[in-house]
């Protein structure tokens, strides 16, 4: 049995100190009729490390991995380049085998790294204060709505949700908010542009309206060009505007949520140095204005001094949290996604200001090249006309045509995109593609829709 260091003599000596005859006796507080026999569990015998490795590698090998340059799937999980240095840094066990930094004297590494992360999140969004991470973008959005709810003293209950919000975010919201009697109303899409209809948002702004959510780029990849107007309309009616960004590399070029007038921003940071990894771990983050800091859920790191006057970092504002405030806490979150946040911090440090801005533009440029090429293909249309970032919806003549194209592209080694609706497909293009890989994709697609 691996990882157990005791020798038979150790165990004897320890039992002797304890004053018991056997290890079994230590379990006497479990009623005997429920005690399991030594061999009772229906599980296999333990494997050696060598056997375990072979088995798990076999499991991994039965997944199909698509080459990065042939992967056109996004929809909330994006295929971006991950610098080698990230795994080496985050693989340092001083980071990954530490607990939540409760003892600041021996946790300055984690604490300072999170403080830097918070700073990066504040700068990406233009807002004042960020928490240290939430489980993912979807749960962070639900928590952000609860933050708004508390900020408005639990008086207003209507949550305006756009129809082009990521469907999983929408589902998580529905589940999370239900116990509190919050009503979700959906704002319509402008079917032409793919943006949310400002008129529809307006029509939902009633005295009971608590907040309005805007995702940009939205689920269809479209930039909400009227986001600024929506934020202004909302604020004029005492409604809190909440900005959601799932493809956070877009913030390298597009206006920050603060510049657009939003008071709360929710980011999913998977794109920043984290693999798609079958859906997780990713991380969400809530960034907001100073006035809401005491309602913010999750860990927050603050700067302070030690008794010698040295700069130091500590977990702060803990009176918001579950272990102090119990059932009156701002959230029940305890463990978060700290190591994912660290990965994103390292990522942003490595690519840097200039690299991040260029990354964003490269995504934009390649995606637009792909769209222009696809538009020329007979039998394919681009569904929405709005300005987009690195993702867009392609429509085929029928479901059959799409299916045929999808299956055939997969045979050619492409992960073609995500099937969407009756006859469409959501296509993401990142810096992992090149002009050449896009041309090959478009050529194949042309053959299959002909």
């Amino acid at each position, binding site marked *: 049995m691996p*990882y*157990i260091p005791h020798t038979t003599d150790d165990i004897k000596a320890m039992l002797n100190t304890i004053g018991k005859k056997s*290890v079994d006796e*230590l379990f006497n*507080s479990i*009623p005997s009729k*429920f005690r399991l026999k*030594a*061999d009772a*569990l229906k*599980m296999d*015998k*333990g494997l050696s490390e060598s056997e*375990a490795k072979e088995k*798990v590698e076999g499991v*991994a090998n039965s*997944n199909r991995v698509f080459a990065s340059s042939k*992967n056109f*799937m996004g929809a*909330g999980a994006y295929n971006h380049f991950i610098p080698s*240095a990230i795994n*080496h*840094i985050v693989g*340092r*066990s001083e980071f*990954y*085998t*530490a*607990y939540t*930094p409760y003892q600041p*004297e*021996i946790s*300055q590494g984690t604490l300072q790294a*999170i*403080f830097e992360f918070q700073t990066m999140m504040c*700068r990406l969004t233009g807002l004042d204060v960020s928490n*240290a991470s939430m*489980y*993912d973008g979807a749960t962070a959005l639900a928590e952000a709505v609860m933050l708004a709810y508390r900020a408005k003293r639990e008086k207003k209950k209507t949550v305006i949700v756009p129809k082009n919000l*990521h469907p999983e975010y929408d589902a*998580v919201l529905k*589940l999370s908010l239900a*116990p509190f009697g919050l009503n979700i109303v959906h704002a319509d899409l402008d079917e032409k542009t793919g943006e949310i209809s400002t008129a529809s948002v307006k029509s939902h702004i009633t005295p009971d309206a608590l907040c309005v959510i805007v995702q940009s780029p939205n689920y269809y990849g479209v930039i909400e060009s009227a986001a600024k107007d929506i934020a202004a309309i909302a604020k004029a009616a005492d409604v809190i505007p909440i900005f959601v960004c799932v493809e956070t590399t877009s913030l390298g070029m597009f206006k920050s949520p603060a510049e657009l007038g939003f008071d709360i921003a929710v980011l999913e940071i998977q794109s920043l140095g984290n693999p798609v990894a*079958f*859906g*997780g*771990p990713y991380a969400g983050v809530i960034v907001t204005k100073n006035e809401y800091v005491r309602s913010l859920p999750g860990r927050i790191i603050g700067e*302070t*001094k030690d008794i010698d006057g040295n700069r130091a970092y500590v977990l702060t504002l*803990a009176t918001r949290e*579950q*272990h102090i405030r119990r*059932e009156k806490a701002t959230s*029940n*979150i305890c463990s*978060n996604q700290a190591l994912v946040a660290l990965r994103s*911090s390292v990522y942003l440090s490595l690519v*840097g*200001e200039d690299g991040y801005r260029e990354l964003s533009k490269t995504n934009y440029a390649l995606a637009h090249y792909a769209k222009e090429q696809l538009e020329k293909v007979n039998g394919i249309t681009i569904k929405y006309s709005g300005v987009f970032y690195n993702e867009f919806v392609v429509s085929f003549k029928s479901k059959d045509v799409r299916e045929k194209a999808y299956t055939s592209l997969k045979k050619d080694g492409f992960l073609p995109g995500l099937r969407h609706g009756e006859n469409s497909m959501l296509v993401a293009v990142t810096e992992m593609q090149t*002009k050449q890989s896009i041309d090959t994709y478009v050529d194949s697609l042309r053959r299959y829709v002909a």
Partner: protein
Amino acid sequence: MKKKEPLIFEISKQGRKSDYINHSSVDCKMPSGDLLRERIGLPNVSELQAVRHYTNLSNLNFGVDTGFYPLGSCTMKYNPKINEDMANLVGFNNVHPYQDEEDVQGSLKLMYELGEMLKEISGMAGITLIPAAGAHGENTGIRLINAYHRAHGGFRKKIIIPDTAHGTNPASSAFAGNEVVAVESKGGILRKADIEHLVDSDTAALMVTNPNTLGLFESELADIAELLHSRGALLYCDGANTNAWMGQVKLGDMGVDVIQYNLHKTFATPHGGGGPGSGPVVVSQKLVPYLPVPIVVKEGSTYKLKYDLKDTIGRIKGFYGNFLVYVKAYTYLLMLGKEGVKKVSDMAVLNANYIKARLKDTYNIPFEGDNMHEVVLSDKIQNEFGIKTMDIAKRLLDYDMHPPTIYFPLVVHGAIMIEPTETEPKEELDMFCDVMIKVADEAKNHPELLHDAPHNTPVRRCDEVGAAKTPVVCLKD
């Protein structure tokens, strides 16, 4: 080694460029300027600067690989290196969550088999792996209980929680829309008689932690389950302390309806400085219909994600949870096997009892009883010399040890909660006990050593009150 490291922003220089990302191979007109932003304020450093920066930061940290980490309630056991290697496999990392099922059979098989093992260990009927952490699992479990009641006579508001439960339990219940009824457990163990008068037609469930936060096994659990069930209520058991009982007993046999596991505790996946964790929830038969979607099922030899569950509570998180954490727990469980699962709890309980035996004459033990995987001491004896738990904890830092959990559970004044785990050798336990005894001696004879501790750490006691009073939570640009 450096004791101070500047902020990454303080070593940044404008104009320094990185070269990680492909330059665009196409030209493109950018969108209109009113959509675009100016400077962000991210740092520009070279790779060496970044690597040194984070390496220096890591040296200011303390992990399980650094030294003894007896943080009670947290199960800081060794995190085997093979788990990390397996979680880094390309076959897991480069797989998109929306790929067709036929292309992700490996991931689904892993989730299915991990789920089966976790069900078997607790003797429960159904599982969702999705919750991202223990508290997320707790909240999910309470929501399942609420769904059950809605389908069986109507919503019940009250969740009874003893004072020996985990700290997240009350908040996890509140965020499911329930009301918490606190109950005092006299003598450390919850007795059926303690709750009999509280369980009524508005009681949804009792939420206990087992073993509880005093490290004691709730020996009346089966009777309590019977009482609850006879009044239509359910039994939730916080499974964060599974390291104490796995392989010894199946809590499902005792009538428990919901348990959340903490893979980042019992199943050796690392804590990552705060996360990601993973909090799978196992349930009894009556709660299976309400599990969140999707669940993984096996049909013939094919694995599928099932969404069409008529009575599901819905979706609790994006995608399918912290998948790479599953890979680590799965690898670990394959290596443990059935004999290893029991051996873990055998040795975890032995180690805790050994520490208790060695320290019981030096420190106050507030609750007598048969300890399982952890032991709670208090500072009562040391109070006489003006020494508090905080001082003892800080002094341990000078001896290169991570302090135990302190001031928790709340039922013990000045609690010192020690959980050694099964992976620590006797030599390490002895060293810890020797240090604890020495510190007790210092408390009596050189109390100033404790008041001023720690002395040698990268920073010393921090002004936490000041940090909260005027929060500085990011570096101004």
